[in-house]
């Protein structure tokens, strides 16, 4: 039974990270129908910025919790700036191009960013400083739920709640939903689609960065290519939930995390990554609209 709970919790932990990244994919896809391949790289950049900030503050002797908060904040800001810049440079000029062009541009951007970090920082595994404080009330279940895992689950749930409220109630959130529904109509009603698309990239990148910092402090390492696998898995989560749907991305993240965790625990841990890819392929083949998505209508 303990084993089951442990696998369940580790699944939820992974799942919440996947969900955080998947939100960025799903929001971008909802508005401009582009698989933003560079999104996983933004997540990786978040972890590297946090690493630099944490080392900097660590040498200056700040308290641990303070470092964590500042690191998350700075990483979020910088990743958002990266997301914004990537969109402006690589995707905006291709707004009216055929559908393959922005996709290839996104792959190029992803390759570029990975190699940028590998050259600017290191191409090896980089040790990430331990930033998570011990929570006293976790003592009795510490053997199945690490404090970092607890922090990941709580933070991502809070962030997701905030995002849902933002999308539902604020002016900007409404404008984003309107643009996703029908861009031409939204433009006619006085919404500037370029601003909305930029905002989508900024918010998505910020969420991915939070995920990046949390996972790096959970596993204790980061590397220039962690964004690739994490990005594909998060994309799987987004597709699983129904791409374009925000609650779908959250649900998809958790479902994928649990599938992987139980698959690795009960079947074989060597093929952990294969489960995610297999789920992705099966979903796309049999239910491309996902768990919560609407089937697209193809107009000729």
């Amino acid at each position, binding site marked *: 039974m303990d084993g089951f709970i442990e696998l369940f919790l580790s699944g939820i932990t992974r799942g919440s990270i996947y969900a955080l990244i998947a939100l960025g994919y799903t929001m971008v896809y909802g508005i401009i129908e*582009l*698989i933003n391949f560079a999104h996983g790289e933004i997540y990786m*950049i978040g972890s*590297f*910025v946090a*690493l*630099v*900030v944490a*080392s*900097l503050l660590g*040498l200056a002797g700040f308290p641990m919790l303070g470092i964590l908060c500042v690191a998350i904040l*700075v990483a979020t800001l*910088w990743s958002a*700036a*990266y997301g914004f*810049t990537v969109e402006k*440079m690589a995707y905006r*000029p*291709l707004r009216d*191009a*055929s559908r*393959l*062009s*922005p*996709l*290839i*541009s996104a*792959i*190029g*951007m*992803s*390759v*570029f*960013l*990975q*190699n*940028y*970090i590998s*050259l*600017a*920082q*290191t191409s090896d595994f*980089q*040790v990430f400083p331990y930033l998570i404080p011990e929570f006293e009330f976790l003592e009795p279940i510490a053997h199945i739920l690490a404090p970092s895992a607890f922090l990941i689950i709580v933070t991502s749930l809070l962030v997701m709640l905030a995002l849902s409220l933002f999308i539902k109630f604020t002016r900007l959130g409404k404008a984003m939903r309107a643009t996703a529904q029908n861009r031409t109509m939204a433009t006619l009603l006085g919404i500037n689609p370029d601003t909305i698309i930029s905002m989508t990239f900024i918010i998505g990148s910020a969420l991915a960065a939070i995920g990046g910092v949390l996972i790096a402090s959970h596993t204790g390492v980061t590397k220039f290519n962690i964004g*690739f696998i994490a990005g*594909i898995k998060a*994309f799987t989560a987004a*597709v699983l939930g129904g791409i374009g749907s925000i609650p779908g991305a959250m649900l998809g993240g958790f479902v994928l995390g649990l599938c992987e965790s139980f698959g690795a625990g009960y079947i074989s841990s*060597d*093929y952990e*990554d*294969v489960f995610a*890819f*297999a789920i*992705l*392929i099966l979903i*796309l*083949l049999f239910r*491309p609209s996902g768990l919560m998505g609407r089937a697209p209508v193809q107009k*000729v």
Partner: protein
Amino acid sequence: MYLIKRSLLVSIWFVLLTLPLLAVKVDTTNETLIWRWENMLYVAVSAFVLYMLWLLAMRWRSRQRRSEELAQPRVHNLYSTITDNKVIVGAFNLILLAILVLLPLLSSGYQINIWTTALIYVILGLGLNIVVGFAGQLVLGYAAFYAVGAYTFGLLHQNFGVGFWVALPCGAAVAGFFGILVSLPVIRLRGDYLAIVTLGFGEITRLVLENWIEVTNGPGGISNIPRPALFNLELSDTGTAVWVYYIVLLFMLIAFISLLRLKNSRVGRSWIAVSEDETASEVMGINTTWAKLTAFALSAVWAGIAGVLFATKTRFINPDSFTFMDSALFLCIVVLGGMGSVYGMLLGAFAIALLPEYLRAFSEYRMLLFGAAMVLMMIFRPQGLIPPKARQYRVSKLLGKEAQS
């Protein structure tokens, strides 16, 4: 003035953007930070200059587009006069062929090795171009078919002692079979979903090669793959390298000529129709499923052949040669050369394989620059360096001589 002000702002933006990652480097073993302020200067200056170029290029691009909108059917410039002239193209072909044939006689073993890789890349570019360029289906897992070819040879040799000439058709067949197997389910997917599913297949293939240790020896790979024999001659190391070079050249030529012929055939035209508009081509009576299936299968067959050639060239294979980065590299060949263009693949593959070798200083940054090149190509020249040319039919030729007079 406006230009300079904008460029200055952009330059400051990029300095801020790269500040934490380029100026600071964490040395975790000694727990210190390495400061590299000089990098900030480089970023500032290069961002300034590059942004000015970017703005100018953007202006050029919008002018280009406006002239396209004026619907001039064919712009006659130096480039098109050269490529339209059959004599010049023929002479160019002969010179290129002569250079490629004579190359091993003039260069060292190391050079031959590089050029063999370049020719294998040409084959891969041509193969991938069938499915990406002609049929318009973005495949992101091409390295998987390449791996299947290479591992077919490796495993056949390891377990049954099979030689190169027997393994070559086997590798092609197994890869082709694999291509059909992958294409059957994905054929109804469109555009980006197809890209992501093929990426998934590519990664699954690599993970299986890495984890199925009993058969594939996992990350250790397969070594001692034989070189092909030339009758019963005992060849030196360089001698076999030259022999492998000529075999690769032969297959590259076969791929090249067959694609040139195939492009204007019935199948080739149906691929191009599918890539232009799937629904419309289906309405016109093209069996789109069949067209995509043949494109996938043929593309995979060429990847399989390239895989066998690669295995015999390096004599050692492991899963590290077949990652997503390799798939992206092959895609980069197609994008650089021009999607749907046959001649473009020569240029694209040579650029990708040879530039890092001959510009040593640049080899460290090669993937960085190839990534940037993909983005820039899509923005400024989506048709590639050597755009494909559609076959032209002259009414006078079709009608016969009366129409000419």
